[in-house]
């Protein structure tokens, strides 16, 4: 994904002489790209102008060729320095001037070499190992006193995303959210990716996981069967949700209701409001969801499919939870850490009908992971799109309709 790049500077009477134009033309003609990051035009004819150009190429070799070609026209490589490091003053505390990350691929310069930052995530810091040979993101709460933390802005490169090779809805490289657009072709593109990822996974290839973060509206709206089928069929490998989705999924199995509404008839049933509490209580008595599935108490639905298919489930709790279910992580920082730990290998994220889980997941994902956000409320996909990810697609639609259509694209017969 990441290209190689180098920053060059041009100085002098570079505008009227067309030297700047010549350098930029040369970069493009040779197959590179550039960003003009800084241009200062002389205020008078005598005053020189100044340009700072980030040159990018698909390979180190091409980059070297481009630099060699533009060097005679005065483009000289900007002097670079290592990124400054400072020790963390205390546990859970960054140095004052810490570098705050974006979700884009990032490199730091250590001992004269550019090192890729591992586990890219926005709004965290970067910790460098003692030997100065590796760098990894670190959340504020996890930092230990004395950890070497990247500070300032020198010696840090944030690389823009490359246009994906696949020519599908994600390759438009723009975060689109619209309730007016037809959904069919977008869902077909998502299905195509999921089929390819499942093939990769079956072939044992790394980085082929699909993540779904979802809210209980999936159950209420009637998307339960479709999602369970997607999981059973091996299309989803990581599930992030809260207490409610799991509770209502199992309530549906035990009582045939979701939050007390008969799923088949759509009517409230007498004492139905107790069903999810009785479900939670039953699972608490058993000890875990997995045990409830393994002992035959829960035999179908989303949770049963997850247990059978070995899907990694992270249940993150919230203030309004009932119970909660025994698997729910109620310490929100611990839940965040569990979600983070489940992300390596994820290559597609579906964020369906849950504002909080969608935003939390979006914040943890690097920009390189294509993301689909589905919600009836346009504010949710818009919020996700505002993260500035180029590979986020927003769909304003009902969760059940989305999951059913997606499952049908993938061969679900219902």
């Amino acid at each position, binding site marked *: 994904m990441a290209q190689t790049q180098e920053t060059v500077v041009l100085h002098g*009477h570079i505008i009227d002489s*067309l030297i700047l*134009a*010549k350098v930029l033309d040369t970069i493009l003609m040779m197959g590179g790209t550039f960003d003009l990051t800084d241009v200062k035009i002389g205020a008078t004819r*005598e005053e020189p102008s100044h340009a700072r150009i980030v040159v990018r190429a698909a390979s180190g070799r091409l980059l070297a060729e481009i630099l060699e070609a533009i060097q005679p*026209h*005065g483009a000289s490589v900007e002097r670079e320095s290592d990124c400054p490091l400072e020790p963390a003053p205390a546990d859970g505390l960054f140095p004052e001037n810490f570098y705050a990350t974006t979700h884009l691929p990032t490199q730091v310069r250590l001992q004269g070499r550019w090192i890729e930052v591992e586990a890219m995530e926005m709004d965290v810091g970067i910790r460098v190992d003692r030997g100065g040979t590796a760098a990894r993101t670190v959340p504020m709460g996890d930092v230990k006193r004395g950890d070497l933390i990247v500070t300032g802005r020198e010696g840090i490169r944030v690389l823009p995303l490359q246009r994906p090779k696949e020519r599908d809805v994600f390759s438009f490289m723009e975060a689109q959210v619209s309730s007016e657009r037809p959904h069919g072709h977008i869902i077909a593109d998502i299905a195509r990716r999921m089929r390819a990822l499942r093939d990769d996974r079956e072939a044992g290839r790394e980085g082929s996981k699909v993540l779904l973060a979802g809210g209980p509206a999936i159950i209420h709206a009637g998307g339960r069967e479709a999602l369970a089928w997607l999981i059973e069929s091996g299309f989803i490998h990581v599930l992030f949700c809260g207490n409610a989705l799991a509770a209502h999924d199992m309530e549906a199995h035990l009582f045939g209701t979701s939050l007390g509404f008969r799923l088949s008839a759509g009517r409230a049933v007498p004492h139905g409001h107790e069903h999810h509490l009785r479900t939670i209580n039953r699972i608490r008595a058993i000890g875990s969801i997995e045990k409830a599935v393994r002992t035959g108490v829960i035999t179908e639905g989303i949770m049963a499919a997850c247990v059978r298919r070995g899907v990694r489930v992270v249940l993150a709790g919230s203030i309004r939870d009932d119970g909660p279910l025994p698997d729910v992580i109620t310490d929100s920082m611990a839940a965040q850490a569990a979600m983070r730990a489940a992300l390596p290998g994820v290559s597609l994220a579906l964020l369906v009908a849950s504002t909080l889980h969608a935003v939390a997941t979006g914040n943890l994902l690097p920009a390189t992971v294509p993301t689909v956000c589905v919600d009836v409320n346009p504010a949710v996909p818009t919020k996700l799109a505002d993260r500035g990810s180029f590979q986020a697609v927003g769909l304003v639609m009902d969760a059940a309709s989305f999951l059913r259509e997606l499952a049908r694209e993938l061969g679900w017969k219902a």
Partner: protein
Amino acid sequence: MSRLLVCAPDYFRIDYEINPWMRLSNAVVPERARAQWHGLMRLLEAKIGALLERMEPVPGLPDMVFTANAGVAVGRRAVPSRFRHPERQREESYFEAWFRDHGYEVTTLDKDLYFEGAGDLLGLPDAWFGGYRQRSDIRAYGRLSEIFGREIIPVELVNSHFYHLDTCFCPLSGGELLYYPPAFDRYAQAAIAERIGEARRLVVPESEALRFACNAVCVAKQVVLPEGCPETIKRLEARGYTTHPLPLDEFMKAGGSAKCLTLALE
């Protein structure tokens, strides 16, 4: 009164090959070279009315005769050259010493910042132009622009036969430009055309460009140029210039002509 720095061709010969004109086998005929040089000096002093500053030639430095490459001098300030080829780098200290001995405030460039003096840096009233790629390094012009407080438009030279700007570009006293466009890349051609209107551009035909018609000395309305350039002469005379063609072919053996043999001291 125009002051010109010159250096007699006492040691002028072809000792090396650093441009496509030079051939070790094409030896200089010393008497002819001396006669041609003195012919040029007589003309400059008697007819043109220039004041000649003569510097001592140095044995073993055959190209010192080309004083255009001594550096550039404006007012009391001088920047001596930094030659690209080691063969000519030995001239640097003599040119620098001359400027210092004659009261110039000398600013030197970094050792690896190649700049070959008025051979590559020429001024028009609107702007100075600096030739690069063949000999001078484009980076030198950023520094020279600071030193002299002038705009310098770098122009790329793309033909090794026209290895210095003064072999293909000659500003005239009336604001016109005598030049040979194919010696420049298309960006430089466009930059020149942008600054100097079509009416002021006098294009030299290829055959005469290759005789170094552009390597001319222009003082007031007088132009001294190598002989054998009738089209160029026609164009110059149509603009009211008096032309003085001279035989200078001994110096063409080294890739130089009238202009290369002089340095204007403004």
